[in-house]
Each structure stands twice: as C-alpha cells, then as structure tokens.
C-alpha cells in the first residue's frame, strides 16, 4: 500500500513521525526508529533556558568561594578546558543523526529570548536539520497581559525565526487559544510551514507526603486523541499548511482517524516509549491492512476524507459532539 505522505514539503514514505521525546535523543535510538519504519524524526528540543541555566550555573560555581580568603584566592573548582555549555552537544547529535539517517531529521527548539530563538534556529539550520519545529511553551500567567498580546508574542517569534532561516518551519503549540482556528491561520501567515497540534505540556502535581509541587510526566493514551482529531478536521483544507497530529497516537486506528480528519503526519512518543520502535512496523502494517481491506489506492486518497469540509456532518466537529456526549453520559447512569 502506498502510504506516502508529505510534511513541510518533505516527501515521506509514510505518515508516522516519532516526535520529540527521549526516544529521539540518541543516534542509536533514532536508527532503531528508522529501521522500524519511521518516516522522519523530530529530535528533542534544544532548550535555551536550560542552556542559559547551565552556563550561569557553571559561572556561579566557579565564582563561588573565589577570593573568600587569602588561601583560596583562585576559587575552589579548577578551570576546565570546556564546560560544554551552549548548544554544542545538541548540534553534535544533530550532525551525527544527519550522517547516520536517511530519513529527514527535524530539530526542535524551545527559546526564551527573541535573540535566543533566532540565534539557535540559525545554528540548527547550519548544522543541517531538514526542518525546524518551534516548540513554543508559553504559560500566559501574567495577569497584566491580554490574549492579543500573548498571541502577538507567538506571531513575532515565528516571524523573526522565519526571517532568519530558510529550512521548513513547523510550529508546535498548545490548544489554549480563544480562537485556535484564527491563530492557526495567523501562525501560517507569520511564516509557519506546518502546525503541530498539540503540545502536551508537562503539568505540575502535588506530592501529599512532602507537600511539595512536583513535575509529573504521564504518558498519553489514545483517549487524548480527540482534541487533536477535531482540530485536524477543522483546519484541513481551510488553512494552507502542513498538519501534524500529536498526542494520543498509539495505534493504526489512531493514525487512520487522524489522517481521515486531515493530518499529513501523525507523531508518536508515549506509545513508542511504552512499546518500543517496533510499534511503528506493526502500526504501518495495520494501516495498510485497513486501507487494503477497503480497496483504497493510497493513504493519500483517504487523507482529509472526513475533515470538516468533507464530512457528511461537519457540525459533528463543532457543537453537536459535545451535546451528544453529554446525553450519552447521562443515560449511562
């Protein structure tokens, strides 16, 4: 079965792309994913905040205690040749991945400062990434900033990166916009070649024993698919951009649903962490089997066939879905 897909202008053999996760950290792991059938790879994000934190921590550690007394005038820790702060380690892995893999390698970037986004985007491009995914992680916690200002931040960021690199640019965002559809269109106007829907932010938890706030990483399940499904369907064909679905992609059925709704590619992370790279192989087989059983010529034929515009019941993606669910829930009690 022809599963060929196109994402960000990159011709891919199929619609399965392992997304930014620990699975795409090492070159060896990326090679296993490729062997299992991954169509492209998104590397984990280069976090500007982390880079800055590390550099400042090195700086502080070397300054700490220096000149504290006549006997330790030079500070307590020896100066090293290289602290490997900055993006060097990330770029080395990117270059190694490019050398080792035939499939496209998409780098991912999470910046904090306007200068940081563009700086690191440029060096990622120079290191040979096939495309760049901007992992925009803004928690709009400031009471004084309204939604328009927050949205402007997103758009300016995308624009400035767009102006500084020429490789394809995907933008990964969360679902929390007052008008997601409008925001999607404006992101594309600002220069995004593709949208990755949706970022699944780490969410804090509370440890009742220690009464402390702890980061809690929970792997996704297929149940989380439906938010993405709606927006794939709503945006497909209405916004001129590549669409990647992420969060809750675990099975061949999940992939098929998302492609029918309009996804160009589907991104997996949690499922791969749980089941290993081989899951890609079986998922691809499942997709082919479904298509073959229904006499599809190719996956592309099915793509968007149940999108908002193509669906016999477009309102199902809007209001009705909610009402129906409510009714069913109530009746089950």
């Amino acid at each position: 079965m022809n599963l060929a897909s196109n994402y960000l202008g990159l011709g891919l053999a199929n619609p399965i792309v392992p997304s930014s996760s620990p699975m795409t950290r090492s070159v060896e792991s990326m090679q296993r994913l490729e062997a299992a059938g991954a169509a492209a790879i998104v590397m984990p994000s280069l976090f500007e905040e982390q880079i800055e934190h590390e550099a400042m921590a090195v700086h502080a550690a070397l300054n700490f205690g220096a000149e504290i007394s006549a006997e330790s005038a030079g500070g307590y820790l020896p100066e090293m040749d290289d602290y490997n702060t900055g993006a060097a380690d990330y770029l080395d892995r990117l270059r190694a991945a490019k050398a080792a893999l035939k499939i496209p390698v998409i780098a991912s970037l999470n910046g904090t400062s306007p200068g940081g986004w563009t700086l690191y985007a440029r060096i990622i491009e120079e290191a040979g990434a096939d495309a760049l995914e901007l992992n925009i992680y803004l928690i709009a916690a400031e009471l004084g900033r309204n939604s328009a200002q927050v949205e402007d931040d997103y758009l300016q960021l995308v624009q400035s990166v767009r102006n500084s690199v020429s490789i394809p640019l995907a933008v990964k965002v969360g679902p929390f916009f007052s008008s997601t559809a409008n925001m999607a269109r404006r992101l594309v106007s600002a220069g995004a070649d593709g949208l990755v829907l949706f970022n699944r932010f780490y969410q804090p938890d509370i440890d009742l024993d220690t009464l402390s706030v702890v980061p809690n990483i929970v792997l996704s399940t297929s149940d989380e698919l439906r938010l993405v499904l709606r927006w794939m369907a709503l945006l497909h064909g209405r916004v001129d951009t590549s669409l990647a679905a992420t969060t809750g992609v675990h099975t061949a059925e999940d992939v098929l649903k998302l492609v029918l709704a309009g996804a160009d590619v589907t991104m997996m992370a949690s499922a791969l962490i749980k089941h290993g790279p081989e899951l890609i192989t079986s998922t691809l087989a499942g997709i082919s089997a479904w298509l073959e059983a229904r006499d599809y010529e190719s996956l592309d034929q099915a793509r968007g066939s149940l999108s908002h515009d193509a669906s016999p019941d477009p309102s199902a993606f809007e209001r009705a879905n909610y009402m129906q669910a409510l009714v069913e829930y109530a009746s089950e009690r």
Partner: protein
Amino acid sequence: MEPAYIVVDGNEAAARVAHTLSEVIAIYPITPASPMGELSDAWSQRGEPNLWGTVPEVVEMQSEAGAAGAVHGALQGGALTTTFTASQGLLLKLPNMYKIAGELTPCVIHVAARTVATHALSIFGDHSDVMAARQTGFAMLCSASVQEAQDLALVAHAVTLRTRIPFLHFFDGFRTSHEVMKIAGLAEETYTSLIDTDLVAAHRGRALNPNRPVLRGSAQNPDVFFQAREAANLYHDAVPDAVSTVFDEFAALTGRRYELFEYVGAPDAERVVILMGSGAGAAHEAAAALQTHGEKVGVLVVHLYRPFSVRHFLEALPASTKSIAVLDRTKEPGAVGEPLYQDVVTALQEGNRKEIDVIGGRYGLSGKEFTPPMVMAVFAELMAAEPRRHFTVGITDDVSHLSLAVEEKWQEPEDVVQAVFYGLGADGTVGANKNSVKIVGTHTDLEAQGHFVYDSKKSGAVTVSHLRFSPRPIESTYLISRANFVACHQFGFLEKIDVLGIADEGATFLLNSAFGPDDVWDKLPRQVQEQIIAKKLKFYVVDGASVAKEAGLGGRINTVLQTCFFALAHLISTEVAIGAIKKSIADAYGKRGEVVLQRNYAAVDASLEALREVPVPSAVDSEIEMRLPVAAQAPDFVQRVTGMIIAGKGDLLPVSALPVDGTFPTATAKWEKRDIAPEIPIWDESICIDCGRCALACPHAAIRIKVYDPAELATAPDSFKSKAWKSKEHAGKNLTVQVAPLDCTGCGVCVDICPAHSKEIVKHKSINMEPKLDHVATETESFDFFLSIPEMDRSDVRVDSIAGSQLLEPLFEFSGACSGCGETPYVKLLSQMFGDRIVVANATGCSSIYGGNLPTTPWAQNAAGQGPAWSNSLFEDNAEFGLGMRLAIEGQQKMARRLVTELAPHIGELATELLEADQGSEEGLQKQRDRVQSLRTVLESVDDPRARRLESVADYLVRMGVWIIGGDGWAYDIGFGGLDHVMALGRNVNVLVLDTEVYSNTGGQASKSTPRAAVAKFAAGGKATGKKDLGMIAQSYGNVYVAQVSMGANMNQVVKAFAEAEAHDGTSLIIAYSPCIAHGIDMSTMMSHQKDAAQSGYWPLYRYDPTAEAVGKPAEFAAKEGRFAMLARANPQYAASLVEQAQADIDNRWQLYEQMVHVQRTAVFEEEGDDE
C-alpha cells in the same frame, strides 16, 4: 625578538618557567605556594608541553615530605624534576634536600617564602622557612619581584644543570607570589639559549638504569664519610661564577641584567642597607629619596644567598662604605645575629673590611608591612652616635626596646594612580581588579601592580585591593597609604571600617549604593561625611546591585564597579576601557557560555548610565556613628588588644600588648558583632514542633534554644517569643528558639532543615529568612534577654538526643567559617555535649583557622569558666599531638588518684567516693566536680607536701576527654601515618574527621578522600581513583570505635555516635560528612545534600562498636612465628594477654564483617525521634 608584556603574579611567573623546564612535578598544597602546583596541574591536564614537547607529569603526594621523596626518586630516574612549597612544607622536604644536594643532582625547588609556625601559625611571607634550608647544600637564589620570580626561575633551572648543584629559588609569599604585575615575558629562544640540551642528556645519563647499574645512597663509616663529603666542594665553589655567567647571557638575551649582589645607590655611599627579597623595592625608594637630599646611601640586594660568594659581595659593595645595616626577614633567637647579618659580618672579616661597622635588624616578619620610612629609619640609625647593634623595625617594641622609631612620612609621586577598593570576599572585586591591572598593563604604556589583602574570616570577609598605575617601573612593595581613588563596594562597610582614612586630599570616592545621589548623603556615618568634606573628595555612587540584577547577574557587582572605576580614573578612554573589559570578560568567561558573556556585557554597558556624582554639602549633619569594634562590656584584653585587631589597627599594638607564649583567652568571638547577614531567620513559635534541628544544624551557633520556667518571662521584652515545651519530663516549661541577629551569617541552613510548616501557607516554616533591618532591633533585645535566662541543668537533659543536645550551651559560637559551613555544626555539637571537660588538638586546616585565627576565637566558656581548651600544633602531627595530651592527662589522673589514696586518712570517706565515682552521666560528673571542690576545702587544712601536689592535679579526678579534630587532608593524607599509629595504640582519644573530601582551607585541592569522578584542584581532569575507606582501616584494628555520620542524613545517629565515642574507653573515630563550598553546592541546602548523599548510598552511615561481645578460640599459629614468640620469651605474661587480644581481634573482625552487612545505607528520619 622582544617578548610581549604579560600581567601575572609571582606564582604564575615562576610556575610557567618550572613547567616549561620539567618532566616531573611533585606537588602538595600549601599557602602561598599552592597556585604554582595548581597551575602546573592545570597546564599538564590541558596538554601543554614542556620545552621538549612532552607534557610534564604532575603528581600530588600525601605531604611535602612525600613530594620531596618523589622528587628525589624522579631525579634518580633521570627526569628533570621540580616542586613548589613554603613554610612547614619546606621543612618537611629538608631531609631529602640534603640527599639531593649530596648526590649533586640538578633540581629546582620554587618557594613562596612563608613564616614557619612558632607561637602561632602565619600564612604570610618571611624568610624563616628558607633560612632553615641553608645547610642543605642547595644553592639559594632570591627574587625580589614578580619579574625576577620569572627570570631567576629560569636562571636557577639553567645553572642547576650546569653546576649539578640543586637550587632553592624563593620569593616572598603573598607580597611577590600573589602580587599581580606587568612584566616582560620570556621568549622561547631565551629558554633554548640558556638550557643546554647536552646537560639534560648528562643528567639523564646519571640516572639509575639497569643497563649501566650503579649504587647510590650508600651507608658510610667514619673512615670515608668525611672525605666523601668534601669531594663535591669544587661543584659548590663553581656556583657563583656559573650564576654570574648565566646572568650575563640572560642580559644579552633580554636586556635585563641581574647581579649576585646588586648594588643600587650613591657610588660613594657611606651607609649601605643589605637585604634580600621584596623589601628591596621599599629600600630602593628610600635610598633614592635620601640621595636627592645629598645623603651618601645605597642598597645592596642579595640574589644568590647560597653559596655566599665573598668575592662577589665585596666587589659589589662600594669601596666608600663605612657602615652597613643588614636586614633579615627572619628571627633566630639566641644567635649573635640573624643569618644574613652573620654572613655579612663574616664576609667583611674574611675580605679584610673590618673597618666597616655592621648592625643587624629584623623586619617584615609574617608579611609585616615594610615601607620606605622604615628603611629611612635604618639609615638614620647608622648615623647615630652609637647605633644599636641589633634592632627591629616596623613595630613598637616596648619590652626589649629594640625597635627603631619610624618618623618619616612618605608621599608617593603625584602621577602614580593609587586606587584602593574595599570588597566582600567572593563578591568578585579582587578578580575584577586583577583584570583591571591586566587591562591597563596591556593597553597602555603604564606599569601596573595589584596587591590584595584579605581578612581572616571566610564569611563576610573584607578584601582590600591596592592598585598602582605608574609611568615608571613600580618598586613600591608595600600597601598604598594615600589613595587618590577609593572604592567601597559594600555600603555596609562604611559603619564598620574606616574606608576613607586612606583617601588622599582631592581623591575620588566611588560608593556602591542602593541610595541615589540625592539620598545617599543622609545615610552616611558622620565620620564618612566629615572625611568627604575635609578631604574635598569627589563623590560618586552607582547602584551596582540593581545594574547587575537587571543584567541577569544576580547580585554580582564586580563588572559594574570595574567599569565605573575606568570611567572615573581616566587611565584610558572610556570606549577603549569598555572594549577591554569586554575582552577580558570574554577571555575569562568565554568557555562558560555565551549567556554569561552577554549578561556581563549588558552590565558593563548599563554601568555608566547608573554612575552618578553626588553633590557634597558643606556641613556634616549625620547622626549615624561608626560602630565600636567590640562591645563596651568586653573584658580588658578584648578591649585593649582584640578590639584593635578587629578595627584593623593591629599594626599599632606594641610588643607588650601581646602574650609572650601565644596563649590567648577563649570566648572572644561573641564580642565581635560582625553583622553580616542581609536576612536572618525569624521564629514563628505557633508552628514549632520543638525538634531542635535548626539549632543543631546552625553552623554558627546563631540559632539557640532554651527551655526554662515560664516565670522567667516576667522581665522579658515585649518582642520575646515563647511557647510551651512539649515534654513529658519537663512539664510546664517554656521553649524559645532565638536568633543571634548580629552573629548570624544568613546562610539559611536552619530554614532548609526546619520540618514544620504552616497549614495555610506551606512555604511558611517555623523559621523563615526575613530582612534583617526589619527585625534587628527587637531580635537584638530578645537575644540579650535570652542569654540572661539560666542555662538548663545538664543533669536534667538527655544529652544524647537531638533536642536534648541543643538545650546544652554551645561552647563554640559565631565562628568566621564560611556561611553554611558543613563542618562547624559537628564542632558545635561536640562543644555542647562535652565542651566543659575536653581538650582539643586541632590539625591545621579550616577548623584551625575558624577556630584559632585572630582576632577572636569561637571556642567559648560556660558561666563557671569551663570550656574546651584548644591548641593547634601542625598539619601532619595532630593525632600524635592529641595522644600526647591524653598521656599527660592520664599521668596526672594517676598521680591524683595515687595521692588521694595516700592521703585517704586525711580525706576520709570522700577519698573512696572520689576514686570510685561513676562519671558516666552528666549527673555523675557534676557530683564528682562537687567532690573535687570538697577535696580542695579539705586539703586546705592538710599540712603535707602531698596535699599541695594533689591540689595541682585535683582537676584530673573529673573525667577529661581529648578530642582530635581535623579535616580529611590531615586524616587521610599528611597525618594518616600518625593517625594510624594512634589508632593502633588504642588509647582513649576521640578523633573527629571533618570530611569535606578536599583540602578546603588551601582552596580545594584533591585529597585521598576526594571521590572518584569529582574535580578538584590537583585533580583538574577529575579524580580517577576512589575514595579511601578510612573507616574500614580503623575498624581493622578491631578495638577502635568507628562511626561514619552525616548530620543532614540522620541527626540522631550523629548525636548517638558522639555520645558513644566519648563513652568508649579506647580510641574512637568519627568520620563526619561535611559539605564544603568546594563541593559547588548552594550551602543553604547543605543538610539536604547530606540526606541525598546517604540515601543514594554515597555516604553510608554506620556506628561500629568494638565492645560487642567477642567469641572465638585462641590463635594457635602465633606460637609458631618468631615475631610473636620473641615476646612470649621476653615477657610471657604480657605476651599471653596480647595473644588473647589478638584472638579478640579475629573474632571482632568476624563481627565487623557481619555488622557491615547491616550498614545503614539510608537516612532514616522516622527513627530520629528522641524516644528512640
């Protein structure tokens, strides 16, 4: 080719040469020579090669003695070998130096000359160490400046190869070793021209080599030793001419000419001062000044001190010389005169210049300032009708009246920029100033010099940077006394230090101030206002903290203040300066990351905008007074002596003010209210759970708890907080947790460890850091009241529990250790549990510095005047030192007991009670103390000489403990041999190893306690070998109580271990995990780090009690071996008892291994309750 100018300190200058010309470098840390080893290690780690393209092997040894042995061996192996040292370190090398010289082995030892400890340790510079080496056979070459430290280092390496005589190359510790100067570097061709490769091959040819075997290091008898000792005479004789030749060659190559004896002054001088070392600079300036007034004076500086060439000496001395003053930077009590004096006198005698009068004086001991006026006083003395034959200069000696009066005032030339900066230790001021010296030195034709003075505290320490920039070469080897630029980088200093006393009229004053130009005047102390007006100072402020914070640098103000300095000092254009500062930032921090550079650049760019000139009013209107150095109620000695030292006026104290034998009162830290914490912990009594952890964890004894009768509160100030004490045993009592607001360093450890927090706001604990200014008045009042509440009766307290131990008065308080120190909580706990009846032997290291560095000591006394008696011997001998104390105590105990027995007829029933007393509890101890008091009363009426003797030893009837305290550098490395021996002896001493896993005091060099994979100085590439298991070694003796503890992991275990160790009738070893600033952690979380260390298995906790029951059969094999059998023949009874013990050893070892299975690998907080 003219080599580039470089800006380096003396250590780097010498070390660079040594590293370039060596194949093996054996090192050991000792101030002020450590940086030479650190740099060599770092260069080799980085792969920097020597002159022949190989990377020198740098190896850290366990002591200087070990380093010397390794040097000797490497030399015998044919390697070009060097080492660096100072002070006691050099003394430890002496035995090998005799050997190395006796074997005519080319070698150079570079020494940053430092005081040898006598009545006190001192890290500062004088020649008492190198003078102890003059008999070794090493040639001794002295450098007087940073330039010379480089140049003569090379000369030493060149000449040693030519003559086969090893060289001791030395320069003054700190004054030269740490002085940053612009000097001319060395071109590679200078090296290659002076170092003869054939001679290197010849050296290698003499190596021990099985292909051409020889015997070296034989033992000789009276028949030939003497002749053999004379056989090398010609080699020694050849040294002066060889040095002279190399000086000539060096001059041809570099244009810099040196002489064995360098005379500078009037060609027809009648009075000549002779000295060596950095004092030469001051002497030259003084002589030049006198010459301008037509005085016929000159200065002869000694470079080659051994061999002392009479011929060269006489050639250098002007023929017109009538009188000479020889200045020695050392003291040889009992000698006719100091060494250089004696050499000069002898040389004149031998050279037939007996008509010259010679006097000799001491100066500059322990880095004492040595200034041109002092030299003028020496020249003046030579003119006196009857000059004092022996004198001192630089002090006021009102006891033996040897000191010369120094009257001249000294004014440095107007065109020399003299800038003085007051900074806080670790605030980056010194580093920025070193950079400034480099910037000026490399961007202008000006000469540049930086010298840095530190106080002896490690928290809240004051650094003073003295920078000179001059159009002429700088020879001023003394501190600036009249600065034309003064910067105060910490506003709080203004009330504590006379910052502007040093300011010259019309000087610029830059103040780092949160208050702007319109507000700052009103915040200044009266004395500061007075000086600004009287001296017509140009006054500027900059809010460095805000600029730095805005730039993302936290509170690091150094680059801000540095930029402002350049803007105000007009040494170079501001644009060039800013470019240069940024370049220096890039050089210094480039490897750390782009963001570090960008943030520093941003701070630099924002600095000038924040710099503001302050309009100076015409009148003084402040009512803020500068603080008194010590409280008015302090005892006389503290007022008279300690207070002067605290005030920075110790130089003014006369000889009579100081004790003759180095004995000082304890309990003095409490008089030094340092007031250094911006935030202090404030207690919320409503949620306190009475656990006592805050007090136990406080490294500075600044959090106290007391339990008392609520009736005490009748006179409490309103702000005093109190709560009911939850205790079955002490129902109806109240508890207070109180901060000592002026003694707290603000480390935050108490807050980190506090387990109680508010139900409503989790971050609000029972103790919280709050701005000091909001609380200082009320908390000071509360603390005073707190101190007035009676201490609890020790008999009523469960000493071996967390809260119980904290109800005991700490007899170690307010140390100047680093804020958040991991060591001091253990020391303080020790003082609480047993402080009223222990003597402490303290190895040199952090604990001896925060414990015994003047001005004050944290070792304290209780209301009865009892407290730890403390002494520090050396770094390497502390276990032996403590053992000696034990032997003395036991001897006196035995004598006391015997006398009690003998005098029983007079003493009656009390005698039996005294001899059979159970002193295992606080109650028992108190009863015994009472008995001793009764005994004294009884003895008063006993007319028997034995009664008088008993009176002198009666104290020893009360149990006394010996605690041997030191760090891992001592216990694992330099002192391990002694510690091992003391443990083997099994006597009743308690050893507390404050294990920071690194040489903390000397700046963080690796020890054998340093864990694998950690970096440290001397292990710049990461330590490749594992940490030594000192506890297992101790346990292998079988009779040593061993505990490995960690306060942050399990406080209860720590308290128990201390109690058990003290109770163990034999040797006890406690290895206490002590986080250190060298660990690179946030010290406020040091207790949490300890918990992590234990829980991860990194630092297993255990207590091993060897008195557990022994089982097993006699060891029969002992009878079959001569080593046991010999004793059985000589002393059958004793041998039998030892064999029995040997069997116990075996049995205990089995037990030990069984116990090892149950080593606690986790920190069990649940078991920490006092009920355990």
